[in-house]
């Protein structure tokens, strides 16, 4: 079959559209692709076809016209024209972005076009006098992408704004702190070597000028937080920051008036370093919510409903108004709006966003289709089964959102310490005042000593202690192929004592292939041909293995396909009944003696051997007679045995979990060294999560390793979910850690490095506090040397930074 020159789909010769473009004969699957190819080449952008990645298949274009009116809400008027943010569906790689930007910039009237690589959002500006939105959208459409109005959640916008705000506040604080340091160093030098009275007060006043924007502009979020905290009578981190920075600032102003030493650099340092810590944290949060937004944007807003009442009626309605059991028509290139079962038509559907499988799946009557997946080639009608938030896509989004809402316990550790520390400091400060007031009978030194306790007690490295260790630790992990998604995961990962491994795709390679096949009473090839004819219509992984790895055969015409989930399939090939499935399924169709008779003793013992080696065996019943046996194997990863051995040796409880049958599971477990009593087979996705939960109730700390949508609930349930690199979007989203290389050997590594990071965090918190704690008694006694304050500040920050840097090595 020839391949479409635009979208790389295979097209039957009879349906191919042939055209001559620039002297070359081109083949297309449809007129839509032909139009796009012509357009791209007429614009001189044919380079696109060379630069795109080889696995790239855009699929035929969505034929539904763009609803221009739905974009009117998101248009904005700016100084020199109009601006809009739109989401572009169909972007697969960097070349798409290149193509879109080029085409847009060549549209007359468009003044700027930028597509964001991470979010697939385009920001377009144009001159309304020259062109309009309808023309721009038509141009986008004409190169095969579907523009959609941007439906960014308020949450995402808020996070973005928050991040930008923090960056500006931090940047401002950093620039002023740098300037401020200049004068502070001069003042410290002056303290030792002597400095002219006039110069000193000039420097001090300049310092005041530089410290003020840091205190009152950059520090605003802390001031708000502290006010909120005090209203609820809780001493949070913000209270500590504001007391520390604020007392240093106002104390210094007082010192200028009385001719003492100033501490403006202390107040500036506290705010700058803690802002940096917060900025690092929001950055990590923002990245994970982008994927959710992308998933949400995949949902079409409108669909064609088939109304049956004598004559068939096709009505376009909003997706939200469609109810279960209605019929929905899907044209080529459209995204499927809801979950359902196909009633008419056959087509290929790209389910890569759900399953990670890049090869399209053939769908016929009886197959399930899922919301958010993309129909490629033919037209389908399906009966809606699940709507709105019940669809698989929504369940996934919800799981992921819940997972993200979990609190970060490492931060809680710091907060817990602060909870005791702040009241203690305030108490000490107050006692200092009382002591000096009654002992010295003077107001001024009493106030001064009390304030210097406050100033010296605020650990300015505190805000950096956790984020910096997490940042350096996770960067180091990433370079070794372990992505850790957040600081909270580290605390949970250090306690792991049980590792649950999924079988398919984790212990095995997850690429089942047809390793043997035998015909009984018919030739081997004939048996394969019959099986392929029917299996072609199924989307099951076993069916795919038979069709894709069985070798080239010309299939017969198959009709009446029905799938029996978990058992097998049946249908008619060349008018004769064909059943393919597990032994149980076949036995329900045909007498047991007859099966055994047809197989013969020798074959039965070979089948036993295959099953005990971990392969799956399916049987072919043709015209009521046992006619063939197919063996589907999945290779066990080379490093699985050594990795499991290492984990067992370290003392982890290693458990294997799978949806497959016990025989297969035992065989694989044995091969990698997992005991039979540590195998859980025949588990549905929900069962897997339940099994993990049970372990947790026994007091275990569980890490789940998996790769597919089947594992997503268990990945979320586990204390730490780990996804393999080739995993689906959903698994990647649900997981806390991702193994970038498909190498099981790094699992123990990942746990160890979490332990190390956690230890560094604890040490950091210690170093952040210790200098201040030592200096507090000096302040109480009224002996606090300004230079000691400065040194302790710098030393605690340096200790935290240096200690975190240790994570870079080893």
């Amino acid at each position: 079959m020839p391949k479409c020159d635009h979208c790389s789909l295979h097209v039957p010769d009879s349906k191919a559209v042939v055209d001559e473009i620039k002297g070359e004969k081109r083949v297309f699957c449809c007129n839509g692709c032909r139009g796009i190819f012509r357009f791209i080449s007429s614009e001189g952008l044919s380079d696109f076809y060379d630069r795109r990645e080889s696995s790239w298949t855009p699929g035929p274009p969505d034929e539904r016209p763009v609803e221009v009116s739905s974009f009117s809400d998101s248009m904005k008027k700016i100084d020199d024209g109009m601006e809009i943010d739109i989401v572009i569906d169909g972007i697969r790689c960097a070349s798409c972005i290149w193509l879109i930007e080029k085409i847009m910039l060549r549209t007359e009237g468009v003044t700027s076009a930028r597509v964001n690589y991470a979010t697939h959002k385009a920001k377009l500006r144009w001159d309304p006098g020259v062109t309009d939105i309808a023309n721009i959208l038509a141009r986008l459409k004409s190169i095969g992408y579907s523009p959609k109005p941007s439906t960014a959640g308020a949450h995402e916008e808020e996070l973005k704004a928050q991040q930008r705000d923090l960056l500006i506040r931090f940047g401002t604080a950093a620039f002023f702190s740098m300037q401020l340091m200049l004068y502070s160093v001069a003042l410290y030098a002056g303290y030792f070597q002597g400095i002219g009275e006039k110069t000193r007060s000039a420097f001090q006043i300049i310092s005041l000028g530089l410290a003020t924007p840091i205190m009152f502009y950059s520090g605003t979020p802390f001031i708000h937080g502290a006010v909120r905290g005090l209203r609820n009578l809780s001493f949070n981190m913000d209270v500590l920051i504001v007391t520390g920075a604020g007392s240093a600032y106002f104390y210094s102003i007082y010192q200028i008036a009385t001719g003492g030493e100033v501490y403006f650099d202390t107040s500036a340092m506290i705010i700058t370093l803690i802002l940096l810590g917060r900025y690092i944290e929001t950055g990590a949060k923002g990245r994970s919510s982008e994927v959710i937004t992308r998933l949400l944007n995949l949902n079409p807003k409108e669909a064609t409903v088939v109304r049956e009442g004598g004559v068939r009626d096709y009505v376009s309605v909003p997706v939200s108004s469609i109810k279960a059991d209605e019929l929905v028509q899907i044209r080529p290139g459209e995204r499927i709006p809801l979950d359902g079962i196909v009633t008419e038509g056959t087509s290929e559907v790209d389910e890569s966003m759900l399953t990670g499988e890049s090869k399209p799946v053939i769908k016929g009557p009886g197959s399930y289709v899922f919301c958010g997946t993309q129909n490629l080639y033919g037209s389908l009608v399906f009966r809606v089964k699940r709507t709105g938030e019940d669809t698989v896509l929504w369940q996934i989004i919800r799981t992921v959102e819940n997972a993200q809402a979990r609190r970060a316990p490492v931060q809680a550790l710091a907060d817990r310490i602060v909870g005791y520390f702040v009241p203690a400091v305030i108490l000490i400060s107050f006692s200092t005042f009382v002591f000096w007031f009654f002992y010295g009978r003077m107001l001024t030194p009493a106030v001064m000593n009390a304030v210097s306790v406050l100033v010296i007690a605020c650990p300015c490295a505190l805000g950096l202690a956790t984020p910096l260790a997490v940042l350096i630790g996770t960067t180091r992990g990433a370079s070794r192929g372990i992505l850790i998604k957040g600081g909270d995961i580290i605390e949970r990962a250090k306690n792991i004592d049980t590792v649950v491994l999924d079988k398919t795709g984790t212990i095995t390679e997850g690429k089942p292939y047809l390793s043997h096949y035998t015909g009984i009473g018919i030739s081997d090839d004939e048996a394969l041909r019959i099986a392929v004819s029917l299996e072609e219509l199924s989307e099951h992984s076993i069916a795919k293995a038979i069709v894709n790895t069985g070798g080239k055969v010309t299939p017969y015409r198959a009709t009446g396909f029905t799938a029996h989930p978990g058992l097998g399939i049946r249908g008619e090939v060349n008018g004769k009944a064909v059943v393919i499935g597990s032994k149980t399924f076949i036995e329900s169709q045909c007498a047991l003696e007859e099966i055994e008779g047809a197989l013969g003793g020798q074959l039965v013992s070979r089948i036993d051997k295959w099953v005990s080696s971990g392969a799956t065996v399916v049987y072919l019943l043709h015209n009521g007679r046992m006619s063939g046996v197919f063996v589907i194997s999945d290779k066990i990863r080379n490093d699985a045995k050594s990795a499991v051995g290492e984990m067992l040796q370290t003392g982890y409880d290693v458990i294997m979990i799978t949806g497959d049958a016990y025989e297969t599971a035992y065989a694989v477990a044995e091969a990698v060294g997992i005991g039979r009593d540590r195998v859980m087979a025949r588990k549905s996705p929900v069962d897997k999560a339940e099994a993990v939960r049970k372990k947790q109730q026994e007091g275990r700390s569980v890490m789940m390793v998996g790769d597919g949508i089947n594992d997503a609930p268990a990945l979320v349930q586990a204390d730490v979910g780990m996804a393999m690199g080739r995993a689906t979007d959903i698994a990647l989203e649900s997981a806390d850690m991702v193994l970038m290389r498909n190498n099981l050997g790094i699992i123990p590594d990942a746990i160890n490095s979490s332990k190390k990071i956690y230890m560094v965090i604890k040490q950091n918190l210690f170093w952040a506090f210790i200098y201040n704690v030592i200096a507090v008694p000096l302040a109480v006694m009224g002996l606090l040397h300004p230079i000691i304050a400065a040194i302790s500040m710098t030393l605690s920050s340096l200790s935290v930074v240096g200690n975190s840097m240790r994570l870079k090595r080893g």
Partner: protein
Amino acid sequence: MWSVFILMVIALCMGVAAWLIFLWAVKSGQYDDMEGPKYRMLDDDEKIKEDLKSDDDSHLK
């Protein structure tokens, strides 16, 4: 002594200038897409003109 004050004024001006440039960079979205620039720098400047042919798609422009 005067030279020190002049240097101080220069340092202040430079710092404020850097700060203003930073503010401009954040506000104009220079930090919004941290992923894209590494691909963009690989894009060649185009050679469109000779390829531009008035095909039958001129109505699209």
